[in-house]
């Protein structure tokens, strides 16, 4: 956006109508949309993605939706990712880098606090977290914060994490299916509607 237009949009006398938040965000993968209630990622709720090990393809799975949010001006907050989110790759996947907030903290309590603040702020499209150990009570707080801020809370955890009583409204397990073909097996562990569904999707290179 040009500087003149940006200045104009900041003008106090100009009012801009904002669209109501979408409650569902298309995933970008038709096969996955079909499995999910409302045909997309649930906004204003907690999504838990279980992986056998970090880097199984879970990021590429959420990239189309994140790109969509960021180009609409909503913030993507990365709280305590295990490695550096690599800007050139993010940009290549259509993410608006100016909407990224990278929060570095090794402390789980600080990570959860930051995620909660970000979810509640109302400015964020998605908040991504990788907590190592987390109590159900803290997860419930995240779920509530996501509801109040209308944001998509994304929690990446190891497959071994106990799932009983998780307050997440969507719980997925992601495993690389046929590695050479870049395909990913996505299993719905919990959702409103039809848990147990499974789909194979092909990730972009």
């Amino acid at each position, binding site marked *: 956006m040009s500087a003149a237009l940006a200045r104009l949009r900041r003008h106090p006398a100009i009012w801009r109508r904002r669209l109501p938040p979408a409650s569902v965000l298309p995933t970008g993968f038709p096969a996955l949309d079909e499995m999910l209630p409302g045909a997309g990622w649930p906004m204003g709720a907690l999504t838990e993605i279980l992986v056998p090990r970090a880097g199984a393809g879970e990021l590429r799975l959420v990239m189309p939706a994140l790109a969509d949010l960021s180009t609409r001006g909503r913030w993507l907050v990365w709280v305590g*990712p295990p490695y550096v989110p690599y800007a050139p790759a993010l940009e290549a996947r259509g993410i608006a880098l100016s909407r990224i907030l990278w929060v570095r903290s090794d402390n789980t309590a600080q990570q959860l606090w930051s995620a909660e603040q970000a979810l509640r*702020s109302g400015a964020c499209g998605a908040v991504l977290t990788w907590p190592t150990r987390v109590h159900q009570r803290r997860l419930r707080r995240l779920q509530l914060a996501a509801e109040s801020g209308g944001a998509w809370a994304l929690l990446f955890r190891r497959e071994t994490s106990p799932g009983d009583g998780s307050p997440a409204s969507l719980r997925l397990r992601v495993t690389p299916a046929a590695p050479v073909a870049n395909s990913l097996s996505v299993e719905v562990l919990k959702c409103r509607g039809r848990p147990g569904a499974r789909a194979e999707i092909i990730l972009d290179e």
Partner: protein
Amino acid sequence: MGTDLFSGAKGTASPLRPKIDLSPLKQPVPFNLPFKTVTPRLWLALYLPRFPLEVLGPERATALPVAVISGTGAGSVVVAAGVHAESAGVHVHMLASAACTLAPDLDLTPRDEAAEAAALESLAAWAGQFTSFVSLVPPHGLLLEIGGSLALFGGLDTLLARVRHAIAALGYSARFGVAPTPLGAWLLARAALEEPVTAMHRLPACLAAVPLDCLDLPARIVESLRSVGIERFGDCCRLPRDGVARRTDPRLLAYLDRALGKRADPRLPYTPPPTFQRRLSLPGEVRDTGTLLIAAQRLLLELAGYLQARAGGVQALEWHLAHRRRPATRLVIELVTPSRDAGHLLMLLRERLARVVLAEAVVYLGIRVRDILPLAPSNQDLYGEEGVTGGDWRALVERLRARLGKTAVQGLAVSAEHRPEKAWRCCAPGESPAGAPPSVHTPGRPLWLLDPPEVLRTVAGEPFLEGRLHLVRGPERIESGWWDGHDIARDYFEALHASGTRYWIYRELRKQRAWYLHGVFA
């Protein structure tokens, strides 16, 4: 109305300035138009009866019986008493020894006149949010010209309610007086006659009840008046003027005339300093954050008023936590965007204090602001959806930074570089590289980068990471950076692990030709 205006004009120092209305006239122009459009002068006097006590911190006014004394030894006199002390019978002007007899557990504090003067100036700067004309009435009063502010604030009652609410939030108890003359307003406030007097013709009747004690006249004049049975302002006015001038003091007549608006009573406007700096002493030595925050809140509310008066905000402010023996703890709070929201600034201090270990108890709390930046009025959404979709990301960044530190909360950007570790950088959140060259678009980059790269084991000359790695794509040769001493020469490969995870690895083309893990495709 016309006569009020006329006498009101005589009672004030500055000449009347007719306000020119450029709106089209729908009614026939009345004959006396220039006089009708002039805003009549109206003064609000704030008298702070407990000021010497309240400047010592919001805490002390509410604790046990407390009093502030002036003077030393047997001659020391009470100048302000707390609520509990007053209910025990302690009052102003009482000897300290008598006060201690009435309330045996009375906590006596010596008066701090320097702190009072500083607090009064700060309060005047704060009051600038309600009017452009504030005048000091030392030691504990302010005069605000509010005639011009009534339209902006939606009438006298609304304005008074706002001032009353705001001053209570600062921790001061104030008595109000409203009159067309500054001295009249001041006398009404002193005498606790809080009913506003807006019409000049009602002023003599309303001032008549003001007791002689409330008049700031030399003791000699008061004594001589009292000796002839004069108790109130009204009694003085009934005395024959020439007789009064001859027998008492011409200053008495001048005083009465100023109060009634018959004589000019110019007041000096208070001009706030260009920077905001303020210090507040704390009740005793404070370690607990809650007490610090109570004191900080008063300073921030004063700052907010000061900023409101200048239509400005702050982007950086400095807190000084003074200790008795060690050098002061200095906390700098930086904001992404200028603000004057006392609640937000207080929250940032709270988060910041949570990260700080105080080496010693705090005795003084200071605040300093150097740069005042213009602050545009906020743009409210018609449907009030701000909380759902707009949100204030700047406030979020400030909040996270206050707790985690500035460097822990960053934005990301790309750099036009071939060396993978230099192709990205941290930047200020929200920074969009306007006019930046498009990045070197290179496909096949991983979403995660290891910083720094991790050395890989080799088994039989093949890279190994919890199992064998199959090279599925590559090599991509990157040789760059000879000009800055950080030159690299590497062959990059995409490698597949048996678990299905894809890694980005490289082999050094020089020296040991070692393998490194540099990224995960995730």
